[in-house]
């Protein structure tokens, strides 16, 4: 059951990343506020940051 939930959660995360990537990477804006080419680094940093913040502060 846990394995199934893991597949579903993983799929949801991948779908979210891809759905976010599509409009951002296809953006025609010359100077957008959020640069699509830095999407992977931006999302990876925030995900790692959230895990660290929760790990460091969650136990207080």
């Amino acid at each position, binding site marked *: 059951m846990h394995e199934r939930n893991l*597949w579903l959660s993983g799929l949801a995360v991948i779908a979210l990343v891809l759905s976010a990537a599509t409009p951002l990477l296809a953006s025609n804006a010359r100077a957008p506020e959020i640069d699509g080419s*830095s999407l992977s680094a931006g999302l990876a940093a925030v995900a790692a940051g959230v895990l660290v913040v929760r790990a460091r502060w969650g136990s207080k």
Partner: protein
Amino acid sequence: MNARRLALLAAPAPPAYALHVGLVIALALELLALTVGFDTQSLLRVPSVWALLVGWTPQILRLTTTAALVSFVLAGARQPDVIRSLPWTDASPLRVPALGLHAIALVLFAALSAVVLNARTPFLAHPALWTLAWSAVGVITIVAWGLALFSFSTWRSIARQAQPSIVGGVVAGIVIWASGFLSEALWLSLARYTFNVVAWTLRLFYSGIVSNPQTLTVGTSRFTAIITPQCSGYEGIGLVVAFLSVYLWCFRKELKFPGALVLLPLAGLTAWLVNALRIAALIALGTAGWKDIARGGFHSQAGWIAFNLIALAFVALTMRFRVFRNEAAAPTARAARDDRTTAYLAPFLAITATAMLTGAVSAGFDWLYPMRLVAAAAVLWTFRKTYRTLTWTWSWWPVAIGCVAFVIWLALVPASSTTNAAWPQALQSAPWYWAAAWLACRTAGYVMAAPLAEELAFRGFLTRRLVQADFDRLPLGMFTWASFVISSVLFGLFHGALWLPGTLAGMLFALALYRRGAFGDAVQAHATTNGLLALYAFATGHWWVWS
């Protein structure tokens, strides 16, 4: 053959639903490829109602995807029995022919799209005929995929049983889709407000600022910027609110509602104000003489830095303030695991965050790359005691795996890539000793720091964290299909456009780890691949292989 190798050979068979997950991922990738490969812009010039209809397809795709995703999430949360009772183990009788039909229809659809979406002559001659053929083949492609996933009777059963979730998903999808149009209508208004805040901020520091409300041009006598709708702040607001919504949903049991909902408008407002300050800072940089930095790195990176800071600040708020925190359900006494989490993720975070910061003050070429090396070294040194507990023994196997990953990477990376195209010119413009020092740091970062940091995050942490929250209670190299595939795909997505070679390389590095559970093997494999890529780039001048 040792126990670990036996354990790997006896790895559990792929779960029954792995094929279903694979089919969904395949469809998502197909849609992504079609979306990136074709653009409906050419149709705007065609004065035909059929061209208009085809031009609306991306909107229909967006609406359908949103509705399907929301329906899926709702069904998973509210009607888990429906998902549980699906015939995961019974293959659809039409699976193989349906997959074949899907593949043929997909190729045909891509060929038709090349004519229709690029508004080529055949389409202009008979727009109705081409539109109908294109639509019909598109429908056949999707229906065939659906029949490969589940049989027709299962789909009918899903529609009947999950009706409330589907209705909810469609309504929510329409609302989200329509709000996109509403936000577009609000762009100009938002741009005006942003313009006023930027102008007001600049007046605090400069006299005689340039300010034209008609063209939304603002700045100083030395540097001006136009507040276009894309710069008005809606992207940041959308990203921050979307991130926080997902966070509030994921950790809803640890939070107090409705109090925590206040964070959503607060985060949106903060994102908008920070964006206005970002534009003011950009103008200040340009005015100070750093025009290339203002237009280059700062413009592309400052938005992401702001998003990360705001997102993490609001997550911290939910952790620190009782008004948002459900004390009864909040986790306690996790200190031991927590240090391990930080130890595994901090080097990766340090490199990524430093790359954003140095990228923001670069004018196209990241001369401050050595800062990443310094940041990684500092964090690795801080947590050195944790890393000493990992297995670091030499073996030729990971080197061989790294060589295979190198060959795959070379075969799949596009030769037309412009990645690192600026390197030769930038390095030639600098004194030789600076260029040599930079290349030495870049090589050390690529061959040592990056493999260590990425393997700690993806193989050391993620493969186990995906299995259970107390990841450090699991042995390194513990295999499950889900954690293997998901961690590798996420590793691939981290490499952006090079997601495919990235995913395959991630799988190979994971296999290096699984072979005998020695963490050092994954690092050795990764370092071998990067080392060979660096050597190849030095030898051939093909810098694009160096990601």
